[in-house]
């Protein structure tokens, strides 16, 4: 297991390096980017660019100093918020995104697995159909549609929850954003879980176990869950990525100062420094999360470790 982990780590690093290099060159060489001579920039921004990117140095020197900066955690200046560098803004926004994201992740896994198991156990009965209907809605309705409706219903009409804002992390302020973020993943995970569990339950060795006289609950717990979880776990990697990108919408609508919000404001304001820095950061984060998921997968299914 340790050897597998080590090997995966070794392959992760070149991945990151390629991605970061790609980002550097996209920004440097793309027409319409800040380095394009055609593009007019305010003088202050030009000064920032020159200072950070060392524009007079040869390209390779710039590249290595950029790489060095990234390793040091210095992601460059933000072009639209003069008082805070990219790294400083990410450091400020990260806790918000992580808190919402991890809560949504946990919620998605717990509710998704639960809904999937229930759906599989009570197949084709009323409960299954009811859950399936809700699941479908969660899959199909975009989150920027669900969020304002929830805000209206729970925030204004019923006045049970605050409409937006962080409120110092109070639970009431977290309920809606986390739910909206988790919804599509609850849906997908439950579909995967249900399908996989049904398949496993019909398999040969489950029938043997049942024939042996083990109770249904034990059969499920001991033999069916683990293999049925594999498609769910393999979804978790991309899910982490989707959660991060989904948080962009949630943070915007609910007014939470997370990284997603910074990213989209930077994109709309053509703050290339911030956009690039955020993309690099997201990549690092997602690659690490994927690595963790791979390791989890390997633990669940030893055949993968070869």
């Amino acid at each position, binding site marked *: 297991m340790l050897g597998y982990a080590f090997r995966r780590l070794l*392959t992760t690093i070149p*991945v990151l390096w*390629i*991605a970061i290099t790609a*980002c550097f060159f*996209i*920004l440097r060489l*793309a*027409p*319409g*980017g800040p380095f394009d001579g055609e593009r007019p920039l305010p003088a202050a921004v030009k000064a920032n660019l020159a200072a950070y990117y060392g524009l007079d140095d040869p390209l390779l020197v710039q590249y290595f100093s950029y790489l060095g900066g990234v390793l040091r955690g210095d992601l460059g200046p933000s072009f639209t918020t003069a008082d805070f560098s990219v790294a400083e803004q990410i450091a400020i926004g990260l806790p918000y995104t992580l808190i919402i994201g991890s809560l949504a992740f946990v919620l998605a896994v717990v509710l998704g697995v639960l809904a999937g198991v229930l759906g599989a156990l009570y197949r084709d009965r009323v409960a299954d159909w009811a859950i399936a209907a809700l699941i*479908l*809605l969660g*899959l*199909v*309705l*975009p989150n*920027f*549609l669900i969020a*304002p*409706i929830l805000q*209206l219903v729970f925030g204004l009409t019923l006045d049970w929850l605050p409409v937006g804002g962080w409120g110092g992390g109070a639970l009431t302020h977290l309920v809606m954003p986390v739910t909206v973020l988790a919804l599509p993943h609850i849906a997908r995970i439950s579909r995967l879980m249900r399908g996989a569990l*049904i*398949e496993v339950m*019909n398999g040969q060795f489950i029938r043997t176990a049942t024939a042996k006289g083990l109770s249904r609950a034990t059969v499920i717990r001991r033999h069916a869950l683990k293999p049925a979880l594999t498609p769910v776990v393999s979804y978790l*990697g*991309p899910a982490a*990525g989707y959660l*991060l*990108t989904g948080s*962009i*919408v949630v943070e915007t609508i609910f007014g939470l100062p997370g990284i997603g919000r910074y*990213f*989209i404001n930077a*994109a*709309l304001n*053509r703050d*290339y420094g911030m*956009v*690039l820095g*955020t*993309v690099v950061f*997201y*990549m690092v984060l*997602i*690659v690490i999360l*994927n690595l963790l998921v791979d390791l989890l997968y390997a633990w669940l299914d030893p055949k993968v470790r070869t």
Partner: protein
Amino acid sequence: MSAEAGYDDPDTRPLDSARSTRGRDAWRRFRRNRAAMTGLVLLCLILLAACIGPFFTPFDNETPDWSAFRAPPSLEGGHWFGTDQNGRDLLARTLQGTRVSLAVAAVATLVAVMIGVVFGAIAGYVGGRLDQAMMRFVDVLYALPYILFVILLMVIFGRNVYLLFAAIGCLEWLTMARIVRGQTLSLRQREFIEAARAAGLSSTAIVRRHIVPNLVGPVVIYAALTVPEIVATESFLSYLGFGVQEPLTSLGTLIAEGTDVFEVLPWLLWFPAAFLVTLLLSLLFIGDGLRDAFDTRGRG
């Protein structure tokens, strides 16, 4: 997904049977799936409405009706879905939006299929080192947050609807490539491929005559399941402001604009949302139906 029973070898079929009995069986199973059939019917209706509807609607999608700004839906007034804040007929706009969303989805899926199939087939067929390298490449790309790249590209290159199609297509080919490669790998090991090679068929001929036809199943299924994702991605980008630009519109844009005003002008949200939900649900049911139909391991 490659159970023996379901495999169709063109060289050992009885000569007088139809091109794909497997296909016929699958169609029969599909037809029995009520949800899938409903989805198919609805999808066809929507496609019909989107394509030929504009010839029958009383108003077009861009001329403001100065006597009816922000008008609620009314049958007598002629604006069956109401009008928007620029006096444009919502029915026409919704149909336009549906066309655009479907076009984006179709082009993006096509791009994804073409790249994915070629990539996956080559990797699976050639195997060995090349396969390892190509799959590593896919793994690398899989890990990256593609939406962010798409947005980064749009920021740099400006908002171009063709760039949008291409970018979304490039998001989806990875999984297609993986599936195709997996299928190709297992096909390659069949004895009949050895036999074909022994008989002197070139590699390209083998790929063309034996492998590609058997890829149709999984590719179609996956494509059907991806389209909802693509429509959702396009809505997401439109909501953020990176999608199609005026005067073009898409279902995502219409819904995004509608959510801002749904308390005072609710029709601006409900009609496009109904179209989007129906479209996505139909696609979902069809995709599920196809998958169940082609998969011969009894699902009980």
